[in-house]
């Protein structure tokens, strides 16, 4: 049987405010447990929440960036459940009147097409603390749970999409697009390994062409694009197996273990809490006026779509390259620094997407952690473009920059003797000498009529030439001279 896959996403985006959504505690990541939790965060008796205006500004900016309506009077509600990392025994969140109403985002797909994914709404809420299991034991060796409330009260927006995606590629493209939007806005640091963005995926299957949605499951807390892609594939396959065996899908929340590619049920619909939402009486409805929205609109930076268009125009990049580089604000800024300094945008784009991105991925680093700057890469691009170094030499320079051996491109070229010899007279002399020492190869070349084979033979001559030039001969010029001399 053929199936249609229906995917909707819920994305928790941690807002990069300095302080928490309802208290003055710092939101910085990585502090000693419970050092960033004050009386309000600990839900001490009598303490009260005070809303952080910056969180509202960020939520409004997000709403404007995803073409959404802004709710002029949004309401905080209490979502009641007991858990030790939820100090008040309820989460302050929004339900009936979220701050961001319906909107949409357009995503680019590998087939060159674009697709619109609708956003149902986005609401503001506070994050819970963290429960640390398996790290603490009492004197009898019984497992205990540690509670770290540093994260409790960190502002989040939860973005809820319509079920508009039909495969993992679309879901990941949407997730990446959203990542690009929130990081470009500067409202989220986008660091998924620290939980700054967390994805819940709702998946259901229906017989191909059917109008009726199937029963869905929710896979929670995916914190990388890769895990998200794997989890979708895993869940689609699981549901398909069940349905094709004549079974039924249970509406449930599942947890995916990316390291093992396994998932397990967390709770079924029957086990779900009755959260007893009601408007929080400690907080007045949030009134947002035109002036506040206009101010947020005026403070919007360039967003990925606009940046992509500009890259195509300004740097003559193709659609694909422009989309990739413009999608992430920090990669885009890095590229622009490299392109401005390097004066060759195309070459800069190739290096940013090739060597540079590969290196970041291999070392699981973000652009911010890069040991080299866009300007340094630009310097390298200059020396490639003006033939000072070969591409092989350029890789060596890149390695030296990355390793921090030296931060000056020209100094590295000098120190490593990577400067190419581009003096044609000198190069011609070397060619003559090498050809003279290899008469058989010369004869073979001249008898060959297949240009492809000739080309390969030229390659065979490059080795001795590079050796003769101690690796410093300009390969491009060597090639030209060879062709001329052998053909003549």
């Amino acid at each position, binding site marked *: 049987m053929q199936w249609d896959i229906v995917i909707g996403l819920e994305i928790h985006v941690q807002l990069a405010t300095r302080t928490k959504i309802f208290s003055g505690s710092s939101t910085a990541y990585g502090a000693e447990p419970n050092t960033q939790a004050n009386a309000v965060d600990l839900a001490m008796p009598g303490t009260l929440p005070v809303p952080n205006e910056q969180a509202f500004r960020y939520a409004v900016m997000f709403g404007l960036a995803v073409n959404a309506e802004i709710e002029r009077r949004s309401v905080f509600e209490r979502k*009641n459940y007991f858990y030790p990392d939820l100090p008040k025994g309820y989460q302050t969140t929004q339900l009936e009147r979220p701050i961001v109403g319906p909107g949409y985002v357009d995503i680019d797909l590998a087939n060159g097409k674009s697709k619109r994914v609708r956003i149902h709404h986005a609401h503001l809420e506070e994050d819970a603390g963290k429960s640390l299991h398996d790290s603490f034991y009492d004197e009898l060796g019984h497992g205990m749970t540690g509670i770290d409330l540093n994260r409790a009260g960190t502002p989040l927006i939860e973005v809820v999409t319509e079920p508009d995606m039909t495969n993992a590629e679309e879901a990941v493209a949407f997730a990446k697009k959203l990542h690009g939007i929130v990081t470009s806005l500067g409202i989220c640091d986008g660091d998924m390994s620290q939980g700054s963005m967390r994805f819940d995926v709702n998946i259901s299957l229906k017989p191909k062409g059917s109008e009726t949605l199937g029963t869905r499951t929710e896979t929670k807390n995916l914190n990388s694009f890769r895990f998200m892609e794997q989890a979708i594939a895993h869940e689609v396959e699981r549901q398909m197996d069940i349905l094709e065996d004549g079974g039924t899908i249970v509406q449930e929340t599942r947890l995916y273990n990316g390291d093992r590619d396994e998932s397990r049920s967390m709770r079924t619909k029957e086990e779900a809490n009755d959260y007893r939402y009601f408007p929080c009486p400690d907080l007045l409805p949030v009134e947002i006026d035109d002036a506040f929205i206009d101010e947020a609109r005026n403070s919007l930076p360039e967003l990925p779509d606009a940046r992509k268009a500009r890259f195509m125009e300004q740097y003559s990049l193709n659609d694909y390259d422009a989309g990739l580089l413009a999608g992430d604000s920090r990669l885009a800024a890095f590229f622009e620094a490299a392109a401005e300094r390097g004066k060759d945008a195309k070459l800069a784009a190739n290096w940013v997407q090739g060597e540079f991105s590969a290196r970041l991925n291999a070392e699981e680093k973000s652009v911010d952690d890069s040991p080299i700057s866009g300007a340094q890469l630009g310097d390298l691009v200059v020396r490639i473009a003006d033939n000072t170094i070969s591409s092989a030499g350029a890789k060596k320079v890149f390695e030296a920059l990355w390793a921090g051996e030296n931060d000056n491109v020209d100094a590295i070229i000098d120190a490593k003797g990577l400067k190419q010899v581009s003096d044609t007279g000198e190069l011609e002399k070397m060619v003559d000498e090498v050809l003279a020492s290899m008469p058989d190869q010369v004869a073979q070349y001249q008898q060959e009529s297949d240009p492809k084979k000739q080309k390969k033979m030229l390659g065979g001559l490059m080795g001795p030439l590079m050796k003769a030039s101690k690796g410093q001969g300009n390969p491009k010029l060597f090639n030209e001279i060879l062709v001329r001399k052998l053909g003549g």
Partner: protein
Amino acid sequence: MHNKSVAELSRELESGKISSVELTREYLGRLKKEDEQLNSFISITEEQALADAHAADEQRAAGKATPWTGVPFAHKDIFCTNGVATTCGSKMLANFVPPYDATVTENFRQAGAVCLGKTNMDEFAMGSSTESSYFGATTNPWGLSRGEKRVPGGSSGGSAAAVAARLVPAATATDTGGSIRQPAALCGVTGLKPTYGRVSRYGMIAFASSLDQGGALARSAEDAALMLNVMAGFDPKDSTSLEREVPDYTATLNEPLKGLRIGLPKEYFAGNLDSAMEQQVRSAIREYEKLGATVKEVSLPHANLAIAAYYVIAPAEASANLSRFDGARYGYRCDDPKDLMDMYTRTRAEGFGAEVKRRILVGTYALSAGYFDAYYLKAQKVRRLIQQDFIDAFKEVDVLMSPTTPSPAFVQGEKSNDPVTMYLEDVFTVAINLAGIPAMSVPAGFIDGLPVGLQIIGDYFSEARLLNAAHQFQQVTDWHQREPQ
């Protein structure tokens, strides 16, 4: 000295006739002796009080005195006091010492007042008799001489009994459905519940957040005005407090009442109002007519729905507000919990008393899926209707008057096993909290030797007018000066 008002004590201190240390010593001595019978205090903070009194004397000597500098008073044990146990009358918080002050606490500290201790209350302010305190019931000083143990009302029964017995000249209190006014009436003292948002709720342990309001219990309207001068004001730590100028509430106490338009809500005088009570209230109103006020009947058409709406909304909010008492971070935790669920269930089963549990259950039920619309939403609609009733009434009159309670102080134990009868104690008071408007209770006579109160209700932010009306009444009557034997 102990039967002087705050205003008088302030003058004595200013004239140098007595020091704050002397005054504090005198009050503490009396308090420790007399309170054995009343149990109106949960804790007496003698050392801190003497230190504060000493500091107050220095402050006054330095010429930096406020009217409160060196004047003794007490806090209801619902206001957090930095470094001093704050129990809210519950086993759950019997060991809780907050590392912060409530804004109200902080305000009195800044004003130089000397807090003698923390007064008893119904557990988590849930009750009308101060019988549900984990620290034992408080006894009303009225009736004691006849050998009767009557309730002081609640939940601020400790504050009211202490002021009535002249153990302190004034005490802070809170009012969610009548918890200042009903004890004021039953103890023969003056109580003021301000407009919702007038006094910061920060550090005041929450019962029902949309109804709770801190206020004053004192011997006179003048003293209540002095208290409100310290308590009122916008607080950035409480988003529901209101940014509005705070007048000097003592400045208008002596305005004449000529032309004051008094409305009598016919619903509050209808049906089964006790005739002795009606007589006391009507004679108080005649005093107002003598002072030049006019009286007319008005209607609050939805008055009969107030108790029902209140006992949905207040427990609903309480059910969430009290979720934080889970044994995880502070307060009571059961011994040797087996696992998380065991810790939650036993901590809360053992830490909360019966009335608190009852209200958590009611509130949880009212918010549950399938019942929310029928209970919580319906109650909120009723609340808006009640609010509108008052708004309409204040188009015609300046203040409303009614009895504060249906009857005088009842005997301990009489209603404690019948929650619904107990809830009816609030029949004249809860609507005011639902509307968020201010109201007072002033002593207005006696029935069988027990005090009764006149409730004066005003429009939003009309505290100055209420205090003025109460003060003028107290210039021509002496009910507020009667002392229990």
